[in-house]
């Protein structure tokens, strides 16, 4: 009896916070949002006939791919740079502090700051580019589809690339110095040292970073809502914004529930693949 009593609190907590909402969501997705009558898989079938849903899925795909790639490459490159070139303790501390600032900034605040910076008329970015002679006419960062996507991506990169940096930097600290020195004695240059010595130590950490960043970018909402509201048109209307629109503008909670389950399925597949790979890495 005691083991059951011991596991009861976490099980109850899990049931209340995860299982009940999930079951409720499934039930909601099988009903008509107005009348409450059972409609089977109608809400799921509707998603396949909804071009706006696929447009938001596409936009989310673009956002997630670019954000993940940029944050990981930039974070890793910076971690390597600092690891190899900066030895002073206080300089490294200063870098940690500076890199923490974006991460502790609330996303809404980041969005407001970016909105001011990307303003076409007086925003610091256009002014700086003009002063450097790089542009003749103002770039309409937030009111054209391509540049709007870039703008919302840039905020994500600014805010979360430091997370990748800090994880990678911590990983690099764990590489044994004697292994590095042995590789150097054997004539390994910067790239080969990274490829064959440092990267194996970082691989599992990088996979964890991918999992965390994938989850975060997949459900991005706050700074995009402030910066573009999903516009212009529907060009930055990601899945989370589209779901918000269906649930809180259209009040169609049943369709929103169906879409959220669809998203859950996509995310679960992605996590299953990543988890399998990660398990293999850790096992090795």
């Amino acid at each position, binding site marked *: 009896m005691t083991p059951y009593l011991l596991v009861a609190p976490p099980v109850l907590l899990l049931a209340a916070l995860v299982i009940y909402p999930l079951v409720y969501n499934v039930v909601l997705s099988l009903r008509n949002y107005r009348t409450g009558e059972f409609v089977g898989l109608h809400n799921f079938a509707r998603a396949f006939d909804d071009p706006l849903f696929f447009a938001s899925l596409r936009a989310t795909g673009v956002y997630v791919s670019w954000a993940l790639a940029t944050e990981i490459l930039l974070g890793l490159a910076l971690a390597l740079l600092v690891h190899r070139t900066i030895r002073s303790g206080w300089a490294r501390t200063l870098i940690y502090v500076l890199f923490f600032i974006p991460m502790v900034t609330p996303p809404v605040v980041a969005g407001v700051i970016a909105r001011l910076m990307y303003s076409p*008329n007086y925003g610091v970015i256009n002014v700086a580019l003009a002063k450097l002679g790089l542009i003749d006419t103002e770039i309409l960062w937030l009111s054209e589809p391509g540049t709007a996507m870039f703008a919302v991506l840039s905020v994500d990169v600014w805010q979360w690339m430091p997370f990748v940096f800090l994880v990678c930097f911590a990983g690099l600290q764990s590489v044994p110095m004697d292994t590095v020195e042995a590789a150097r004695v054997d004539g390994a240059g910067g790239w080969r040292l990274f490829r064959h010595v440092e990267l194996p130590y970082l691989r599992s950490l990088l996979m964890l970073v991918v999992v965390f960043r994938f989850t975060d970018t997949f459900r991005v909402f706050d700074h995009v809502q402030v910066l*573009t509201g999903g*516009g212009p*048109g529907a060009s930055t209307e990601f899945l989370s914004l589209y779901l918000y629109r269906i649930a809180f*503008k*259209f009040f169609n909670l049943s369709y929103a529930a169906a879409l959220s389950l669809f998203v859950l399925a996509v995310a679960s597949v992605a996590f299953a693949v990543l988890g399998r790979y990660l398990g293999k890495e850790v096992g090795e």
Partner: protein
Amino acid sequence: MRRTWLVWLVVGLLLLTSTGLAAPQLPPKPAELTMAVVAGGETKGLKAILPIWQREKGVRVKLVEFPYPALYEKLVTAFQANAATFDLLIADDPWMPKFGSEQWLVPLDSTFGYVRDPDIFPVVYDLGSWPPPRGPVPPDERGKSRHLYAITLVGNVEFFMYRKDLVPAPASWNAVIANAKKVHNPSRPLYGYVIRGAKGNPVVSEFTPVLLSYGGRIFDDNWKVVLNSKQAVDALTFFAKELKRYSPPGVANYDAAERAREIATGRAAQGFIWPAEITDIVENPSVSKVVGKMGYTLAPRGPGGKHAPLIGNWLLAIPKGSKNQRWAYEFILWATSAKVQRPYAEGGGIPFRRSVLLNPAMNKKFPFFKAMADSLAAPPEWRPRTDQWFAVEAILGTHVNAALAGIETPQQAIARSASEIEKHMREAGYYR
């Protein structure tokens, strides 16, 4: 002796009866009234008059402030539970269809015998009544008896502003374009017009008066979507091409703050405006370069000859769950009285009474009051009275914004909006 006693008895009875006839007895004073309000400039005037109310009536009014979306959610939650959380509330007028159809509010006419005041514009009473007295009525609401559930507190109405030192007051869209051509000089920079074009509510608030002035409509009187019309395409072509031509670059992401800033810094000459933007920014000497240079007038008329300003009042109402309904009603009567509307306006509130808006002394201090009175008398257009409005606004606001950004043509934007709105209304049970 016996006679004197009888006289005193009669006098006493008369006194008691006359007091009873003079005014209905108010219940004992509550310790306080709790009022749900939106956080922001809308409550500036209210906060200014509350100390007067407390001094006069001896009842404290506690304001509970919520950001805009949270206020709606809190109110709906309290209503559904019939909780006595709030005695009073202020509600945005597009919420009225939901609140009215669910019968969550106390009818002011049948419960307290509210008598309409000729000093208040009829549109104010129309807004607070449910089912709506004009325009299409939602299918489930037809046949219900109409009551007055709310009275305006914040008399928000959209009107037009122009640089009176540079151009004359434009009465029509042709005159707006003529003015814009006259002053437009991006190298200065001075733009002939400024659009609040951000996706969603901002661009819909801006486009709707143009659409209606061109004779376009979203729904007919039976909720059939009639948006896909030549008038609507012409209106959007004018909006997204002609007006945009004279606007600063990037207006497809402009909200109220950006528009007010363009005007206040002297970079734009004309545009729509809501009263709060004037008091807070455009006529505020601490942030504006154009104080005294702006003129205010009715929304320009379109080819159909119609002026179509948009109304966006905040309404005072009493939830059914309130335990202090009679005192809450007393507060509504007091706050909306002619006597209190003046200190309310002077304290930064947006009044709605004819006598205050047309008062010469008040107009000297608040130069936009006459334009507000004209707009309220026009009468202004309201958003279609349906609890599906937010969905309609989200759909229209996406496509009009796309047209403004050049992603969709006006024809595509109107056709897609019409088809998506129709699909949504069908699902919402409007067509049987």
